[in-house]
């Protein structure tokens, strides 16, 4: 890319961002912070300005925050043209144009795709339409669910025990509501953290009064004469009466609008290189279309150059910053997005955090604390290296383990650790479900070829 072009782009080019949420907002701010003076347009299908989603299943359900007020603070002025409440419906790569649902078209010199994911709906449409069947992804979803929980339902039924489903169950218990959780796998959180840690999450739920049903699937939602949900039918032939059903079956990438555009976009997201440049369907990198946040799939040197799809708040911020930087830079000044995956959740008063890519690990060692106390650090290993760590109420050690992952430290973990118990001296199988079986909300997905044998020294990107 010629230096003149980049100069011109920075001064008077047109940048369009599709997806006006966390990644879109942070990208817009970064563009301005790094001197982009041209025309900036943000397109978002929700009618609201960018708001934060993690509180929707935590502070909001716990009554600590209003679902209508989780708007994100702005780090700086973006002086952008906001087109809110209108979806992008198509992309013409050759003409460099985004088509909108209202018939308008917006031209760009560079485009950022940040359309995120949406909640996977209940597959049977007539049942999904029953009054009382809810999802939780958007601010409107949260308002609706809050209202229904406050009305004091006799029982809430949560389908799927991933992070979101478990957080919802936790909030229900705190409100004193009866709640049943159904999970296809053997325990909550298994897709994200494996069966060993999942068993701890299962204990947490049952001890807090959740009616947890594992190894079952929901077969049907039953409505009453006026179209309100009244019962849930399970594969073990049991029937549970409930008047609120929350469908928490993970998410789907918002890539439909890119169908036929020629981009390498599909159900697993939009593939891009480490510099956030989107691939076309032939696997050739584009130079004017960039991707960031939940919708992106990008290769990571630390994890065998596998493509990672992360549904992580921190990733959306970091990737947006890198994409924005690269959008207005010459080749040599571009940076790779080599963010250390990190995630948090809290449920039943326990703080859960992870770094790295737990589902990549076959083995697990509890290097500090103990599962029985629910205060521990677990380290995941893959092919003799540390690839992830998870903590329950033990946050302050995670930073250390993040450095271990960056260094490709050997696994099993040999260094002595504080508070190591006898049971933590040997690795055990982490017990992830067969990756070909669907699980709910793993939040990190590996989706690429793994060169089995590689040596590397990792230098994290400094921002």
């Amino acid at each position, binding site marked *: 890319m010629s230096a003149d072009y980049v100069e011109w782009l920075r001064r008077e080019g047109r940048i369009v961002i599709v997806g006006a949420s966390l990644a879109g907002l942070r990208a817009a701010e970064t563009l301005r*912070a790094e001197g982009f003076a041209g025309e900036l347009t943000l397109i978002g299908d929700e009618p609201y*300005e960018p708001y*934060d989603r*993690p*509180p929707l299943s*935590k*502070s909001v359900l*716990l009554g*600590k*925050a*209003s679902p209508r*007020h*989780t*708007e*994100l*603070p*702005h*780090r*700086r*002025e*973006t*002086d*952008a043209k*906001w087109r809110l409440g209108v979806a992008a419906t198509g992309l013409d790569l050759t003409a460099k144009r985004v088509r909108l649902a209202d018939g308008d078209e917006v031209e760009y010199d560079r485009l950022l795709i940040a359309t995120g994911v949406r909640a996977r709906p209940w597959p049977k449409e007539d049942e999904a339409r029953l009054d009382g069947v809810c999802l939780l992804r958007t601010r409107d979803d949260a308002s609706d669910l809050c209202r229904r929980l406050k009305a004091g339902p006799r029982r809430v039924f949560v389908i799927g025990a991933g992070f979101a489903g478990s957080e919802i169950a936790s909030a229900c218990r705190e409100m004193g509501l009866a709640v049943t959780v159904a999970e296809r796998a053997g325990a909550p959180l298994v897709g994200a953290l494996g069966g060993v840690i999942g068993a701890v999450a299962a204990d947490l739920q049952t001890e807090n009064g959740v009616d947890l049903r594992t190894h079952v699937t929901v077969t049907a939602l039953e409505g009453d004469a006026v179209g309100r949900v009244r019962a849930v039918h399970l594969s073990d032939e049991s029937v549970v009466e409930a008047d609120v059903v929350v469908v928490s079956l993970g998410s789907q990438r918002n890539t439909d609008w890119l169908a036929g555009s020629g981009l390498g976009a599909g159900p697993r997201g939009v593939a891009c290189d480490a510099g956030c440049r989107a691939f076309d369907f032939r696997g050739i990198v584009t130079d004017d279309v960039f991707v960031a946040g939940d919708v992106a799939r990008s290769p990571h040197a630390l994890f065998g150059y596998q493509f990672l799809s992360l549904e992580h*708040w*921190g990733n959306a*911020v970091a990737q947006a910053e890198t994409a924005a930087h690269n959008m207005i830079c010459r080749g040599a000044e571009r940076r790779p997005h080599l963010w250390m995956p*990190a*995630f*948090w959740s*809290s449920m*039943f*008063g*326990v*703080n859960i*955090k992870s770094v790295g890519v737990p589902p990549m690990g076959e083995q697990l060692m509890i290097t500090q604390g103990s599962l029985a106390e629910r205060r521990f650090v677990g380290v995941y290993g893959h092919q003799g290296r540390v690839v992830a760590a998870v903590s329950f*109420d*033990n*946050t*302050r050690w995670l930073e250390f383990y993040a450095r271990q992952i960056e260094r490709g430290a050997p696994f099993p973990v040999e260094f002595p650790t504080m508070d190591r118990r006898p049971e933590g001296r040997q690795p055990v199988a982490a017990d992830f479900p067969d990756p070909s079986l669907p699980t709910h909300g793993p939040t990190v997905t590996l989706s690429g070829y793994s060169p089995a044998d590689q040596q590397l020294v990792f230098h994290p990107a400094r921002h």
Partner: protein
Amino acid sequence: MRLVVDLNKCQGYAQCAFLAPDVFAMHGEEALIYNPHAPEEQRERLARAVAACPVQAITADGLGGMGETDTQAAREASDVR
């Protein structure tokens, strides 16, 4: 006033919950929950919490010069409206 906490950074030191208990609270021993829309009368307490967080995990706008991550943000908060 809007705020957001980067809970990947947060170490649960509870400084913020101590300084602005109406905005921040500990849930269990380490988990922080907070109100992302702090009422106006919490302005000063919020600013103190932002400044006191040992890992600078809190970003707020509309504080009018106190505790912002970026001086630009001190300008009239949102350019959306």
